[in-house]
Each structure stands twice: as structure tokens, then as C-alpha cells.
């Protein structure tokens, strides 16, 4: 599969953009960028500095990597969407999201891109539960992940194992949609269901997740309470919208 990727990539000259959202990641971002440039030297990289108050942006600039500094913190979804907008406007064929905290392994980026280049998928999610070593999430979060993965699987009619992964790739058709409409707070199962119902082909590949290199997660107690409520409501409105639009088109 690797050989096929290289040949097709060269043949098609796909423009690939790696989007790295970062909020106060001055201790991790340097390592992440070094990894990315070593593993996928042909891809462009953009760091979306989501209103960091530390040295994140300056470190990125010193590394000679493109940085988009948002004047205020807009949240992970808003930051990633900035990258999608940039990728779409700049004519990229493929965009890959990878976190700036060092949890994702840059050597696995190629695994995400291959199915898109081979035109087998429009959206490729890196799954921490598909083969590979088990990812140890806290119990309640794990329960939520399983529940929403089951809901997404049921609605989309295909096995989805990891809806919360922030390590994924999309093609240009999906970029167009996401640059227009993307959840601001926690893009998750709702976003995947939304794309699936639009007819985009979703594919999962196994990835492994490392511990954060430094710092703490931004998931707070309040967010963990708000998360299931927001997701259920979002999924319900997507289904309702799909039902109403379907009826309208059928008429």
C-alpha cells in the first residue's frame, strides 16, 4: 500500500496540508513539527495558534513553519475549521488534522492519506480502537466514546470505532463542506454522521496514541457534562434536517 501511495502521489501531485491546532503548546509544538517534517517532507504544514498566551506562535515562526494566529481563543473546532478554510482557499487536495500536543504519531499520516489518494474514501479517521494497542481513556469518557461510536455505526450502517479521534484526513470535496459548516466546540460523532449522510465515504485506519508530551488536557469537568448533551442534540437535529430535506427533495 505504501508503494502505491508514493506512485500515485507523485503521479497526481496531490497538495497535502497538515493542520496542527495548538493552544499553549510551547513545550510540545517544536517536537511535533520536527516529526511531521521528517515523516512527510512533501506536505505543507500550518499551525493554527488558537489565541495562545505563551510562546507557541513565535516558536512555530522560528521553525519556519506557517502559523495562523487567531486573536482570541475560539475552541478546537473553530481553530481546525480555520485550517480547513485556509486549505480550501489555497487549493489543497487533502487536509490532515493532527494535534499539537504530541499525542499523534506523524509516521502514521501516510496511512490516513493513502485511502484518499487511492480514491477509496473521502474521510479517513485514525482509530485508536481498531487493532493496535488499546488506548486507555478514563472510564466515563470511554463509555461515552463507545456509546457515540455505536450510535454513529447504527445511523451510518458501517462499523465506526472511534468518533473522537482528532487525527484524520479529508479530501477537497469534504474540505469545501467543512470550511462552511463545522462544529465550534467538540467536533465528534455528529460531524461524522453529518458527513456520512451527505454521502461521503468514511474509512477508519488503526493508529496509536501517545501520552501528551507536556501540559494538561483542555477537557474540564463542565465540558464532560456538557459533551453528551450537546452531541445527542446535535445528532438529533442532523437526523431531523436530513429527514426534512429528504422529504422536500422527494416531493
Amino acid at each position, binding site marked *: 500500500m505504501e508503494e502505491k501511495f508514493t506512485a500515485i502521489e507523485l503521479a497526481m501531485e496531490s497538495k497535502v496540508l497538515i493542520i496542527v491546532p495548538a493552544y499553549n503548546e510551547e513545550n510540545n509544538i517544536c517536537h511535533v513539527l520536527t516529526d511531521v517534517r521528517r515523516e512527510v517532507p512533501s506536505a505543507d504544514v500550518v499551525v493554527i495558534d488558537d489565541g495562545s498566551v505563551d510562546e507557541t506562535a*513565535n516558536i512555530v515562526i522560528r521553525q519556519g513553519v*506557517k502559523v495562523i*494566529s*487567531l486573536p*482570541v481563543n475560539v475552541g478546537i473546532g*473553530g481553530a481546525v475549521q480555520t485550517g480547513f478554510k485556509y486549505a480550501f482557499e489555497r487549493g489543497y487536495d487533502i487536509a490532515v488534522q493532527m494535534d499539537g500536543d504530541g499525542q499523534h504519531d506523524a509516521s502514521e499520516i501516510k496511512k490516513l492519506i493513502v485511502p484518499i489518494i487511492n480514491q477509496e474514501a473521502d474521510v479517513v479517521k485514525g482509530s485508536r480502537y481498531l487493532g493496535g494497542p488499546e488506548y486507555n481513556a478514563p472510564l466515563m469518557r470511554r463509555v461515552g466514546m463507545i456509546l457515540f461510536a455505536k450510535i454513529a455505526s447504527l445511523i451510518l450502517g458501517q462499523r465506526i470505532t472511534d468518533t473522537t479521534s482528532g487525527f484524520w484526513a479529508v479530501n477537497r470535496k469534504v474540505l469545501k463542506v467543512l470550511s462552511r459548516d463545522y462544529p*465550534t466546540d467538540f467536533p465528534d460523532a455528529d460531524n461524522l454522521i453529518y458527513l456520512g449522510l451527505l454521502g461521503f465515504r468514511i474509512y477508519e485506519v488503526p493508529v496509536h496514541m501517545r501520552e501528551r508530551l507536556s501540559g494538561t488536557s483542555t477537557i474540564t469537568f463542565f465540558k464532560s457534562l456538557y459533551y453528551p448533551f450537546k452531541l445527542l442534540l446535535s445528532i438529533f437535529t442532523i437526523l431531523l434536517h436530513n429527514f426534512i430535506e429528504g422529504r422536500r427533495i422527494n416531493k
Partner: protein
Amino acid sequence: MKGISQIVVIVVSIFAILFIVELVRRKKMKEKHSLFWLSAGMLSLGVGIFFNTYGDIIRTFGVTEPGIFTLFLGFSFLFIVTLYQAVQISKQSEDVKALIQRVGILQSELLEIGAGATPREDATQV
């Protein structure tokens, strides 16, 4: 007692209307958003002035307690206003997010062409 209530309603309504007009004059509230509150103030003033007529009218609809009915009307009004404002806030949040994203992209392009723009050092969290 009825007379005192009537006076209180009239006085409060007049003050409310004047306060809203003053907010609009000082550009603290847009005319568009003052419409709801001015209408409520006018309605309240009307009820105050025609207190007995108001009571008679709503009793013809079978309402035995005009006070409770008025409270219900007030609650309904506040519900509509709050709902309207939640919609406005949601829309404005989306607009603000789009503007922040656009500023970030434009700033990075300025940096690229060497126009001297640098990332904000005093970035804040909202």
C-alpha cells in the same frame, strides 16, 4: 388599594418608557431592539390607564384572576425576548468566529509578504 396599584403601574410604565428612550438616545440600544421593550412599556401603560376596562375585557374571556393572567402575559413576553436574544447571540457568535478566522488568515498572509504583522502577544481567551 386598586387606586394605588393603578398609580404604581402607570408610574413604573412611564419610567420604563423614558428609560428605554434614553438608552436609544445615548446609542446604548438599537432602535430595532428597543421595539420589544417600548411595546411592552406602552402596553403596560395602557393597562395602568384603563385598569378597569382591562379587567372587564379579560373577564369576558373567562379569566377570574386578572393579576395572575397579567403575570402569565409578562412571563410569556420575557420568554419570547430571551429566546430572541439567544438566537441573536448564536448568530453573532458564528459571525465573530468567522471574523476571527478571517483576521487570523489575513494576518498570516501579511506576515508572508513581509508586511510586518506579527501574532498578537496579548491574545486573550473568550
